[in-house]
């Protein structure tokens, strides 16, 4: 009778230990897999970081805007607008001067034909 009880207790103990070991091992494996996945993601991101860094270097030296700040873009846009206005101004001057020179030449020709 005693022997039977002991066997039962022994079996229950073994089953409990086996169940605990199985769940713990399973949890540890899951965590290991998760860590490995995250590390793979890190490696991938490092590669991406290198690509972005290379792309940054490929933009070359931007002179005084080399350490680009958002306000630099505003400055640059202002400069582009100013330079565009300057170009328009020169174009207008060029057109006016061309007309003036042509008018003077015509005047000279007419004067010569008329009075000499």
């Amino acid at each position, binding site marked *: 009778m005693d022997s039977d009880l002991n066997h039962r207790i022994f079996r229950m103990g073994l089953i409990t230990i086996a169940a605990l070991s199985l769940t713990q091992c399973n949890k540890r494996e899951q965590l290991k897999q998760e*860590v490995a996945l*995250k590390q793979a993601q890190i490696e991938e991101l490092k590669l991406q970081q290198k690509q972005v860094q290379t792309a940054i270097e490929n933009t070359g030296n931007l002179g005084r805007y*080399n350490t680009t700040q958002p306000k630099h*873009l505003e400055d640059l846009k202002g400069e582009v607008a100013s330079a565009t206005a300057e170009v328009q101004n*020169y174009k207008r001057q060029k057109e006016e001067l061309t007309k003036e*020179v042509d008018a003077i030449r015509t005047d000279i020709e007419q004067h010569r034909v008329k009075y000499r």
Partner: protein
Amino acid sequence: MDAKAFAFILVLLFVGAFGGIIYETTAIDEINRELQTTNLSLSNLENHIKGQTEYLELRKEAFALTSALEIIRKEADALHGEVEELRQRKTRTEKSLLETVLKTREDSAGLQLGDITLANGTILKNSRVNKVDGTITSILHSEGIVKLEPSLLPKELKDRFRFEISDESSQLPVSKKPEVEVPSNGAISPKQARLNSAKLGLEKLQMELSHLERDRAQAQTDSSSTSPTRRYYAKKREDAYNQQANSLRRRIDEATLEVRKAEQALGSR
């Protein structure tokens, strides 16, 4: 005896199991810590890449704008050259017109005019041009000689002699500094214009230096960051700022010298 042996084995098993559970729990904790560290690194890396991507976009736009600016400035330079060339051509053409008119005036001595009516209604009969001296036209007519101001001449003679064209009117102003607006009344002398331009240049450089100093201060703040990557880039940025600041300071010295020279030139006038 049998029961004692079972109890002993059972106790041994439980001790072993307890040890095993502690070992497993410790291992799981370690893995959890590793997972947390990995998560943190991943998050930092993602943030860093996000920042770098934004910076890349900024640089791309800045690159596009600087390229556009360079092209526009080249076009502006080319157009400025063409405008200058046209101004010179206009001056030459005006000189040519003046020479033509002067030759016409010179050759008109003895020109028969017949009966002419002056602007004031006087009729000069059998007239001819005696000579043209400056803006005065001497005309011989049946009753003697008369010297006439341009305003009194008939329309045909006014058109022939073109007194509105003179040596002074052929001298055209030539713009040398497109950045400095010269008033049309010509109140600013070339020396004053040079001084203004030099001062403007100096102000621009000083403003640029102040912006740079501000950016450098920002970089210095970033360099005290806890992130090694951020510290590295901040240090690089700071070095670049230092180089640019040194170059700017040299240019400011040159510009200051230029302003002083312009002031001395203006003072010695």
